[in-house]
């Protein structure tokens, strides 16, 4: 249900959109690549890497340095994963 458009804005109702979710990304010697949840469940096997890009910003405040991959998963789902290059952790977002 859509909220009333004239309802007063409340900061406690703000929420992050497309918040990155921690994931694991593994590449096997065969070349296969999978994305999984931290609890071991599989998000999907990677069919293709569609694009990769990098972001380096905010170094004067709290540095952001990320390497992104846009992936096509088996079954046709597209996801974006990125590695925080400062911590090595992987996250997933919707494209």
């Amino acid at each position, binding site marked *: 249900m859509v909220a009333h458009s004239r309802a007063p804005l409340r900061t406690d109702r703000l929420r992050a959109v497309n918040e990155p979710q921690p994931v694991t990304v*593994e*590449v096997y*010697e065969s070349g296969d690549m999978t994305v999984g949840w931290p609890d071991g469940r599989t998000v999907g096997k990677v069919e293709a890497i569609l694009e*990769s*890009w990098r972001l380096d*910003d905010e*170094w*004067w405040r709290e540095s952001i340095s990320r*390497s992104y991959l846009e992936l096509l998963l088996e079954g046709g789902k597209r996801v974006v994963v990125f590695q925080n290059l400062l911590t090595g952790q992987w996250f997933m977002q919707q494209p």
Partner: protein
Amino acid sequence: MVHATALIDRPSGRQAASPPYAELHCHSAFSFLDGASPPDEILAEAHRLGYPAIALTDRNGIYGSLAFAHAAQPLGIQAITGAAVTLTDGSQLILLAETPQGYANLCRLLTETHLGADRLEPRLPLSAIEARHEGLIILSGSRRDGLLPRTLETEGLSATRKLAEQCREMFGRDHFFVEIQRNRVRGDLATSRALIDVAADLQLGVLATGNVHYHTRDLHRLHDVMVAIRHRTTLDGSHRIRNPNSEFYLRPLDEVVSLFADCPDAVASTLAIAGRCKAFDLTRDLGYTFPDFRGADRAPAPHALAELCRARLDERYPEESAYRAQAIRRLEEELKLIELHKLSGFFLVYHDLFDLAREVAIDVRRGSRRASGNLLPGRGRGSSVSSIVCYLLGLSHIDPIANKLFLGRFLNETLASVPDIDLDFPREIREELILRVYTRYGAEHVGLVCSFPTYRLRSAVREIGKALDLPLGEIELVAKLADGRAEGLADEMDHLPGFADRKNSPLWKSLCELAHEIRGLPRHVSQHPGGMIISSRPLIELVPLERAAMEDRIVCQWDKDSCDDARFIKIDFLALGMLSLVEECVELIARRTGAPPDLSRIDFEDPAINDRICAGDTI
């Protein structure tokens, strides 16, 4: 199992067995706040990585190109001369000099870019390049500002194809290339694939380039700050105009090959283009010649100079002079040295210029009482006063024989560069003389030497501090600390009340680090105090010209060091405030006494004056 990091962090620093790639798009600090590396550091890194050739393509200029070309030679790297030219619509093309004719066209086009537009917004119509593209190789430009990528982004594929076709018609298939870049910016892949398709449709060649803005990755922070400074905003406010990542560095060659693995021809073609550009070497093919002196058609320069000097020698050292014999010996010695170094024409042109200065002085002083004061238009100074040739030509008023002056510092057998003759003039005469030189030799043949003010620690702290959005009052306190201290800005902050605990906070730490990194890099183009270049061949085919901040002044894009490297002859017309004061004093004396004093009759040996000088009783 291999961790996915392997997909992202490619191998680096390794040299390929045979170089597979030449960098054809590289900005240095001479792109002024759009490049974070000086040319020599780019070359050192290129050498380390095994690059065979690299093109310096600074924005609307070749300010650092000659120094770059000279520094590349001992490293065995081919330096290609080029520039990124801003078009009327704000987009950009890369022009590379393939031949000497191409270089001349590049200089003319860059001059038109600057003189045909607002001084701070150089722009060039595409039609101008169409008219002068012979000997040039033209690349379609960078992902963000390039003519084709920008059209692709704003008007779509069909408009891009049409424009590319138009460029092919204008410049020819062999001279226009579609440039693709992979700086790991989101959308690069799609853009480059669309451009490859356009090129394939039109049978145009494709070139991979790096769009390099700094030689090592860690300098991306400095480049970000520079972009913010250039746009007079903060880092936060420059999000859209800054590069989104740190991938605009000089890559290891195997990394380039890997990035363009789907289009290996685009990489290989860079070597073919570099090969074509070998037909022009800036250190070899400049073709500068000094202008002829007046009367060059009547007698060769050595003969004319000897004749002129001998005639004057009889006036200055008559038969009864005690110095005559010495003067004759000295003149013959100097004439031999001058002929040895083929400098006769150089001295005669100086003589012409001093004659011109006399005409200017007469015009400037006309109507004033000092007009009859027998004042020289200006004075020679420095080592040139030891030359009897300078004395006889009127370039110096000091007798080198009577004063026992040593010649060797000015002229000797092992002279490596052209001797320096500094001429001082009263301010108003100098101003008019500079304009008169333009008229005498033609605007296309004359230019003032430029200079490049560089960042010092204090200016660096102020500008970087603003980019970091630090409080202005606090920036000023730290800037004052920075004055004259070459190292240790962070240590200095320890002594500033309230700042000791801040130096490790991210913003202040960045300020300290970046202020040291930017120190010494050129900030903008300025004007040398008085150096002028005069050329027989149009100067605008040798080095681009642009407007100085001062009205009616045109500077060339090389500083005195590059002008020396180019073997240009630099004539220094310097303004000396004291000479202006002397002129004023003569005027005042003439007003009071009714007649100006004759300064040429002042006795340099007056003991009373020498006593006062010895006593330190001078102004």
